[in-house]
């Protein structure tokens, strides 16, 4: 038994080949439409046979996703897609497994499975649609809602401190974490491809607008007027710069990131992004200020961190192979006989 790898194909497919015959039923204007489109666009470019692709989801608006993909798919139960996908990928390393989840599904009811999947590093691509609200249950606050957020279940404002999803996942031992947004198709497609290329669990947080229950939650990051000032698009090997004309930069003062004018410093003084530096990634995940706060840091997008670490399924296959080498392939008669037997004539 060798570790099966995901096969490749040269068959030319289009996004249409990845569109199922089911009517898409998200609310008009939902950010999910754009994400679905980008995923369907990227799929043919991955060179993976369609039948080897599986989309697994839990419960929530985003979790209807598999029904719209013309691939194998499972719409499971709330919070458990991570566990279902784990069992699938561990037994079928030849499949490209994609997991679609939301902030409630992944971080609240399914929080436990999420952190354990990340530490095991099973080669699954997780797409977390974060809209900071419960949409399917019609508008309660979620574990990523901000303090004070007024929702149906928090009419006087939410008092729960929110999760910082990327700090959480990095802390759980993730080997690939990235952030993108529904309103930037080009960036999102790029990140989806990188997530696919990474061998191990890839965690992609996608800011997604719920125009019905939490409209405009991310508009300072996604809308033209403020996007350049409020976001920081990271690329390995390039300095962290942002602003209308890339006039701002970030540099490290000890462990503290500070904003500087690019014109005032030498390029060498700026923070050069390297997605393989864990310590720096830890700091980057903490660029999580309320954009209304004076002097806040911009919100980073792109790949924060990636590392190569053996996957759970490859370690398991190796262990099975080692055992077979040492003990020989299992023989049922020997097993049934056990250590000691006796015969009655």
């Amino acid at each position, binding site marked *: 038994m060798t570790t099966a790898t995901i096969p490749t194909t040269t068959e030319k497919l289009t996004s249409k080949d990845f569109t199922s015959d089911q009517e898409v039923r998200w609310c008009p204007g939902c950010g999910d439409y754009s994400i679905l489109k980008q995923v369907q666009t990227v799929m043919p470019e991955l060179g993976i*046979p369609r039948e080897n692709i599986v989309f697994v989801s839990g419960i929530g608006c985003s979790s209807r996703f598999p*029904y719209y993909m013309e691939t194998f798919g499972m719409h499971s139960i709330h919070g458990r897609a991570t566990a279902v*996908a*784990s069992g*699938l990928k561990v037994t079928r390393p030849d499949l490209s497994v994609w997991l679609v989840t939301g902030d409630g599904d992944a971080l609240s009811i399914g929080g436990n499975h999420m952190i354990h999947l990340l530490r095991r590093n099973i080669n699954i691509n997780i797409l977390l649609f974060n809209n900071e609200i419960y949409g399917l249950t019609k508008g309660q606050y979620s574990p990523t809602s901000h303090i004070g957020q007024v929702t149906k279940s928090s009419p006087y404002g939410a008092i729960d401190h929110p999760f910082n999803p990327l700090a959480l996942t990095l802390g759980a031992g993730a080997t690939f974490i990235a952030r993108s947004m529904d309103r930037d198709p080009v960036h999102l497609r790029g990140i989806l491809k990188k997530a696919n290329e990474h061998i191990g669990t890839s965690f992609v947080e996608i800011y997604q607008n719920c125009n019905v229950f939490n409209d405009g939650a991310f508009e300072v990051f996604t809308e033209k007027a403020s996007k350049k000032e409020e976001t920081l698009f990271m690329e390995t090997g390039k300095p962290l710069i942002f602003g209308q004309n890339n006039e701002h930069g970030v540099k490290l003062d000890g462990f503290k990131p500070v904003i500087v004018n690019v014109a005032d410093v030498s390029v060498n003084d700026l923070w050069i992004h390297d997605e393989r530096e864990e310590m720096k990634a830890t700091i980057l995940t903490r660029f999580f200020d309320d954009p209304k706060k004076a002097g806040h840091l911009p919100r980073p997008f792109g790949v924060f961190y990636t590392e190569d670490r053996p996957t759970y399924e490859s370690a398991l296959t190796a262990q099975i192979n080692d055992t077979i080498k040492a003990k020989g392939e299992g023989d049922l008669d020997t097993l049934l006989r*056990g250590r000691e037997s006796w015969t009655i004539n």
Partner: protein
Amino acid sequence: MTTPIEEITKQKTNKELKEVVILFAGDSGDGIQLTGTQFTNTNALFGNDISTFPNYPAEIRAPAGTLAGVSGFQVNFGSVNIYTAGDQSDVLVVMNAAALKASLRSLKKNGIIIANTSGFEPKNLELAKYPKGVNPLKDGSLEGYTVHEIDITKLTRACLENNSGLGVKEIDRSKNMFVLGFILWMYNRSMEPSLNYLKEQFKKRPELIETNTKVLKAGYNYGETTETFTTRYEVKAAPMPKGTYRSIMGNQATALGLISASKKAGLTLFYGTYPITPASDILHELAKHKNFGIKTFQAEDEIAAVCSAIGASFGGNLGITGSSGPGIALKGEAIGLAVMMELPLVVINVQRGGPSTGLPTKTEQADLMQAMYGRNGECPLIVLAASSPSDCFTMAFEACKLSLQHMTPVMLLTDGYIANGAEPWLYPKASDLPEIKVSFTTKKNSLKENGEGKVEKYLPYLRDEKLSRPWAIPGTKGLEHRVGGIEKEHETGNISYDPDNHEFMVKMRQAKVDKVADYIPEQKIDNGKEKGKILVLGWGSTYGSIKTAVIDCIAKGIDVSHAHVKYMNPLPKNLGSLLKKFDKVLMPEMNNGQFSRIIRDKFLIDAIGFDKIKGAPFTAGELSKKIEEINK
């Protein structure tokens, strides 16, 4: 001229016995379970029929010397057929005062007590809560029993004092070998199997082979040379059916059944589980056999355990999860998902006392209703129950077979009693086990009109004669499809909120499970006549006790029969007519009357419930008494 030792040996007499029950009891750190297991294996190898019942505290190391810390191992072996670990013991071996206090009531009148006197020091007596100044070995309260006092601790220490290089703690740990040696002598058994075990067990610490061997032999020789022991006992081999046997425990048998089924089905076995007493030994056993390609997955919780097994099933593997009642409760929603998606899934429940955490290490049969009805919505499962340690093998194999062939989850119920109990097993040859035919669908299975003519389509919920659906696994070109927990449209599997479709699908899933009755054996009478006055109807681990009691009552001339149900849902097709051939149906269960309620519900008969909810199996005596009572 004979030496004094030969003289003594010559004077010892042999007495033949048909059946002996020994209860070993001591602190949970005393190695009681090992002594019991080794003695059991020796007798099994000798050819006795055997049944065992380990009984240990939930705490790993409860405070030494206390009543809470008493660990027991009961073994019944004989030259006759044995079906239970015995109601009461003939011999009670106690390592300390607490063990005596906790176990004395299960010793027969006139029984033999072997007591380790150094476990009866004032401190031990106080911990065992004897009144100040009272020592049961000295105060005459054990009159009527034959008491042998041996200072096992002292003798063990003396045996190893010069050359062992071990500390006192380690030396004391080998006193269970002294007990084993002595008991082997008492019952005329060879030390060979135990010596082999020590060699195997301590391969990496040869000094322990040497010391344990020394103590084992010292125990044996103590019986041989001490004048106090004048009688040795002999229990001849039992008249067992011809063939090759091994000793097997229930959880081990379950694991072997699962492995056999995966081999016979040609599928990878995936076992997703979370540690829980008394089910963990299934995981331990499976994890050892990675050379069978088995994938064991110790999940982060019970829900992840079952969901990972569902993921494995979706991928075309044999997905299995195992737990005990509390864990099964957590798995409920996910089991429903597998029912809804119609995927194979085997769920094993090694039942223990409940509710909540209940009695983790004690036995009960109180999860039958949970298995039958314990999920949201109309959610039928195939439910099977194993009746003895070796039957766990048969039913685990059967659970896999039915699940794979009917594309629906199966729950297998065992319990703490048979999971940890052992018996001789006439094990099968691999070639004697039936093949489990599994065929993945690789082609589209229907022609559908799409407005421009007929096109081939794959319908994931098209039914066959068993009402089960095709299984097309990821990687199969052209058969891409979606499954999920939301109600699905008949045949296409697309999401459907249509009210008529929902009712149709609920009834379809029920009919599919009911249809399994066509593929399982009819109910047989285990013992007694096919019709008559009393039928004792049991299920699960009560098998041995009921069998013993019914044999006993038939011998007394009572018109009584025994039937034991292993297919709990659906029930065998002939069960209703079988029940109606008896005037009275007695239903002993280790719960508050769960199966009797189901039988009353299904067949409208006035079944007489007989419940025991004490964390312990029925004794045959209790059952005989009840049978005699309703016979009046």
